[in-house]
């Protein structure tokens, strides 16, 4: 069967959920080969997971060079593998690091590159929601080996346990790829919440919260639901919540099972980042707020009353 390369998305070896989604998707296209690239000793943490989700083969690349420099070494290794394995396609997550790696590998292999795919047929026709999800396009790569970055949460992961063969890669990285050196990694917010783009449920807060400290209400609701926390641009612009949590046209795009918009009016800028969510719940005091046009369930009311009550109700039903 045709080989499909899947770039493993992981944090220091711990696989991200999107990896299982990519392997599941790859199985509909051919035989998935996971490509694990990380620092020394990190693969051990991913090994079982990759077997569980049906990798037929794993290319293992472990090296300080892969951990210590931004993107370029991984892109070089991936491009070499594309040349030697000649897969039918390469799938990566559409996350910042992975899409940069994918784009550079596509450039090196003179191949076409598609990003933000939410579906892929066995004929490698990708579905993408463009312009903030308002237009759905079908596209395909016309040059080289298709390199496709797939959005998290666009495929339901299904286990397919097996015993993949392993191939150790010899990592030799050129000097030009070792120029942007990571000298430190600083963890600022260890929330214990799921990643925004991977979360099944996202609770976002906006201007209606009125102040940064009121995000505690959103966080409490999120924690009762096991959700990630997002914020509208108005909220991040005001400095109420970190920019990396911004959902919208100039922030992250999310597509969870449930999106709860708290005190968010739903300007086009915000809708672009969340309108493909499966179910949308909105809480806003303004009945004219455009967010209600998208909502499956909208509540016109005071979020300071409604949100704590909702949090209690969710806790009660656990």
């Amino acid at each position, binding site marked *: 069967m045709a080989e499909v390369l899947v770039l493993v998305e992981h944090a220091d070896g711990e696989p991200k959920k999107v990896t299982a989604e990519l392997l599941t998707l790859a199985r509909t296209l051919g035989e998935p080969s996971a490509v694990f690239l990380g620092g020394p000793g990190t693969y051990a943490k991913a090994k079982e997971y990759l077997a569980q989700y049906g990798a037929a083969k794993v290319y293992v690349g472990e090296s300080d060079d892969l951990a210590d420099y931004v993107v370029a070494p991984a892109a070089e290794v991936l491009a070499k593998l594309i040349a030697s394995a000649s897969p039918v396609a390469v799938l990566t997550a559409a996350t*910042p690091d992975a899409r940069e790696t994918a784009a550079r590998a596509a450039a090196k292999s003179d191949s076409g590159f598609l990003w933000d795919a939410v579906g892929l047929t066995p004929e490698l026709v990708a579905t993408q929601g463009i312009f903030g999800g308002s237009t759905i396009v079908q596209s395909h790569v016309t040059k080289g080996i298709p390199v496709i970055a797939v959005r998290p949460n666009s495929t339901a992961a299904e286990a397919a346990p097996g015993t993949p063969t392993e191939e150790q890669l010899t990592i030799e990285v050129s000097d030009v790829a070792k120029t*942007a050196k990571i000298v430190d990694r600083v963890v*600022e917010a260890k929330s214990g919440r799921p990643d*925004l783009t991977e979360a099944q449920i996202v609770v976002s807060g906006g201007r209606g919260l009125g102040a940064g400290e009121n995000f505690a209400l959103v966080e409490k609701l999120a924690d009762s639901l096991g959700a990630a926390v997002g914020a509208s641009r108005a909220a991040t612009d005001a400095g109420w919540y970190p920019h990396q949590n911004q959902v919208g046209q100039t922030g992250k795009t999310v597509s969870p099972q449930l999106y709860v918009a708290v005190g968010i009016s739903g300007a086009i800028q915000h809708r672009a980042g969340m309108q493909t969510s499966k179910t949308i719940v909105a809480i806003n005091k303004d009945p004219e707020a455009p967010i209600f046009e998208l909502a499956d369930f*909208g*509540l016109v009311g005071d979020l300071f009353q409604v949100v704590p*009550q909702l949090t*209690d109700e969710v806790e009660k039903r656990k």
Partner: protein
Amino acid sequence: MNIVVTVKQVPDTWAEKKLDASDRTTDRKSVDNVMNEMDEYGVEEALRIKEAHGGEVTVVTMGPQKAVETIRKALSMGADKAVHLTDDALHGSDALQTSKALAKVIATLSPDLVITATEASDARGGVMGALLAERLGLPQLTLARKVTVDPAAGTVQIERQADNGYALVEASLPAVVGVVEKINEPRYPSFKGIMAAKKKPLTTLGVGEAGLDASEVGLASAGSKVDDAEPRPPRQSGTIVKDEGDGGAKIAEFLATQKLI
């Protein structure tokens, strides 16, 4: 410091964006076009670095004739000169082709620093910084939320944004820096700036003058093709209720019927 900053003209954020029915490229004719909002942060960062360390800021864009408006905006903010790569042959270029074309132009300017924004609001690829670094063979310092340049040492350091914090990344100059929104507060062009912009040098290049071959750019040789495009079906309208004191409980009920809790 010789700084190059890339900008792109895009359909206005508030415009209803669509694809041109004839060739399925972004329709730029039926909408208002503006400087990509994120690029304002790139221009601002370039100007701040110039103001701190001296030098010159050159704006580079690729786009139709009309994109000169976006160049004017960057010049009126304070950039010194501009290069506009424009040619019918470029129409429909994908990100990989665009990076190749821009890199060709940028290389002739021998910059110490190339600044881009993270993404444009029309295509939202988020890969131009990485691709320019690839094409130019320069360090990739993208997703920067803070940039510190040390011209004497010939180095640049950034805070690369991550989900739970940041990575501190260092490189020697020259380098490509990609900035995120919020890195700064972009200035508004002053009246004086707007007047001065009209006299600033602008070089317009066609594909041939830029040393590109028309066969390597444009829709016909792009690496991907759009087969079909449809507007997303509108969402089914939902239930909207007014809070009568039990709003939270009502939402919980809804979530339970949807098996979400």
